């Protein structure tokens, strides 16, 4: 079996297996899996409105996935995407609300603010890793909590004691009447194009830029990079900064597109953590991230329809979705299985 064929077959088989086990769970709990999956399908692709909402949901996943994938490719494990996304969300919401500028300046400025905030949140663990060798996993996890509670406090400050920021001005919005109309007035916005553009940017940095060559060298083999005269510390910091910027933009999707403001939160959004799975599902490549994010975004959004249309409680739905993702992520098992089948055929 050729490697290419295996690469295509693995995710397909994984999804089918996940669906099967999910069906068993529904059956055992006394619900109709056919109705359940029909509801899931309709929730994702049922009508143009559903499709619009699904795509809208995918955008932040793409950016969170890019953030994790970029760090992975450069030898770092960025678990702080969640926090970077939260600070990015707040920065974009604040710039969108606090300034009055022409759209051509305001929107890019708000996006830039989100990227910069995320970058700053990545810079700190990057600096600590490069200079003091503090492991980035510890720092980024802690930075997540700092982000959550700091942003909650800041929201209170800017809203003078309230629980959410004012709506952003239209000049900073990613909302699109056109996209909304063709999807039956869903909340689909231009964010998906920002996300896809960043997919290209990640590819461009890693595969075309001198910086990407250095970042990958440092990621694969720090010693060889040092031997080749690269500045290892600078590259580690740079990798975290770029990764954080991707995550920050993910927050901008929510601030400038989906919600138009930011409310205080009791807990994490989960998008940043899901970004880890998205990146791994996509094998840390830019296009792979699009695939992973699509799977995640569709399942997450489509699942909302299952309680309504098929009467399946949200808890069971969560289990089913988790199973599907679990099977996709354990593609390794299927890969080994396929290789074995391939070998047997060869032997015959």
């Amino acid at each position: 079996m050729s490697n290419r064929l295996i690469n295509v077959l693995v995710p397909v088989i994984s999804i089918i297996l996940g669906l099967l086990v999910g069906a068993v769970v529904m059956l055992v709990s006394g619900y109709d899996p056919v109705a359940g999956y029909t509801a899931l399908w309709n929730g994702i692709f049922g009508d143009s409105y559903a499709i619009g909402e699904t795509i809208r949901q995918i955008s932040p996943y793409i950016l969170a996935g890019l953030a994790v994938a970029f760090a992975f490719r450069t030898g770092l494990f960025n678990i702080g995407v969640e926090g970077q996304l939260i600070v990015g969300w707040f920065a974009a919401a604040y710039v969108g609300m606090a300034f009055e500028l022409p759209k051509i300046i305001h929107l890019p400025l708000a996006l830039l603010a989100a990227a910069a905030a995320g970058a700053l949140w990545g810079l700190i663990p990057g600096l600590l890793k490069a200079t003091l060798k503090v492991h980035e996993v510890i720092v980024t996890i802690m930075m997540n909590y700092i982000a959550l509670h700091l942003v909650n406090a800041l929201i209170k400050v800017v809203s003078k004691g309230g629980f959410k920021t004012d709506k952003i001005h239209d000049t900073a919005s990613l909302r699109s009447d056109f996209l909304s109309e063709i999807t039956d007035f869903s909340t689909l916005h231009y964010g998906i194009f920002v996300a896809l553009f960043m997919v290209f940017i990640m590819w461009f940095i890693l595969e075309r830029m001198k910086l990407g060559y250095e970042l990958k060298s440092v990621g694969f083999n720090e010693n060889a990079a040092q031997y080749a005269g690269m500045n290892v510390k600078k590259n580690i910091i740079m990798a975290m900064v770029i990764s954080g910027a991707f995550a920050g933009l993910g927050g901008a999707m929510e601030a400038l597109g989906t919600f138009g403001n930011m409310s205080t939160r009791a807990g994490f959004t989960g998008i940043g953590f899901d970004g880890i799975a998205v990146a791994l599902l996509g094998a840390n490549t830019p296009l792979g991230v699009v695939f992973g994010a699509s799977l995640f975004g569709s399942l997450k959004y489509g699942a909302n329809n299952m309680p309504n249309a098929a009467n399946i409680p949200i808890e069971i739905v969560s289990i089913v979705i988790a199973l599907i993702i679990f099977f996709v992520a354990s593609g390794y098992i299927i890969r080994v299985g396929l290789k074995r089948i391939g070998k047997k055929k060869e032997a015959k």
Partner: protein
Amino acid sequence: MEYVIEMLNIKKKFGTFYANNNITLQLEKGEIHALLGENGAGKSTLMNVLFGLYQPDGGEIRVKGKKVNITDPNVANDLGIGMVHQHFMLVENLTVTENIILGSEPTKMGMLNIKDSAKKVAEISKLYGLDVDPYAKIEDISVGMQQRVEILKTLYRGAEILIFDEPTASLTPQEIDELIRIMHKLIEEGKSIILITHKLQEIMSVSDRVTVIRKGEGIGTVTTAESNPEELATLMVGRQVTFKTEKGPSHPTEEILKIENLVVADYRGIEKVKSLNLSVRRGEIVGLAGIDGNGQSELIEAITGLRKVKSGKIIMGDKDVTNKNPRQITENGLGHIPQDRHKHGLVLDFSVGYNAALQSYYQKPFSSNGLMNYKEVTKHANKLIEDFDVRTQGEHEPARALSGGNQQKLIIGREVDRNPDLLIAALPTRGLDVGAIEFIHKRLIEQRDQGKAVLLISFELDEVMNVSDQIAVIYDGAIVDTVIPAETSEQELGLFMAGHNKNEIVEGSDGAVLKEGEDDHV
């Protein structure tokens, strides 16, 4: 004659590739049987089959005439087969006895019973003249002594057949002589030995018979006494090999590297290079001879900018490069073939092409305005592959997939191609076979003849003697003496490497005095 081990027509296949194809090896009782072959010829595979780590795809193994099925190393142990590994499997901070009983610790009422074991270890040690202290800690004894512990370990477990895997790789000439004496003693006591090596001299001096394998095929078995190194090399490589590297006299000119009173500490802060002075001129190869761990690594790392210097000066050309960063030093005309090609020399997950550009990727034509020009990278890689005979499926192949020799050729190509004034070659031929070694030596001499300076660091005396124009011997972080190869002998170098200086050697020529001093140092 009775055979203690017979491996008949052994076949071992990996995928579609035969690592062993019809290899026959018959070990007589009481002989030293050498297994000779290039790197990747299948020696290790064959021994792993014998040791139960691999199952053969064909052929059979007989022990004392009886057909056996060696399914795992425990079975091999029970059959009396023991392996003395090239890289010692010892726990540094345990004693000799503790290491030997590791895995089958004898207990008395639940308590570890070291005393009886130590007694047994001492007995075996005495019987074979190994002279090992059962209570010494591994980290306190010399490499030669550690190897004896490995030998003891197999004997303790009742081995009748000992496999030595490249046993002389890290020994001094004196230690090698000792090892050979021990091997003969083992034979006297009725053991049989398989010696894996690609060093022809060793084979000539100790073995009774030689089995040669080439590219996985058994070429045949010859009696050592009826053969000669040239014939063995030809059998092993499949073509004529020149041993003595051909080179004309050197014509050194101006000084390119000058090291003054250099002090360098290792990662623990312990001084490894102690007030070292060294000079290398254009048009000469200076060989740095010494036993591993005498400050060579720290010295190279200091010269190349990978490690900070505590005090002293490194001058390259007319520039002071002390504590400059690697790129500044590289741009000042340094080429560096690093000691550890996997750690420093290559990014193994990068393609051959990416690796070929590792030192110059940031310069035109490989990149400009922050963008890489991978077309040029590819072109350059293909040129290196062609010029330096790197056997690869193409520049896109990951460096990891190349054999050691080809990885090394790629690094040498990359470094030599940049036309450096000073080339530092650290263990450039470690683990490579005769063919690749010949190639690499030629390239080093070529550099010299073009008026470049070469600093060659090696643990192999042959190599240092053959290739260098001057030999500087390093011991305990300083240069003991500098000699000209034609005016010295391996014996003399060996003594320098153990820390003796010229005066001591003259005084101690009666032998006894010398022995005492040696034990102090090693």
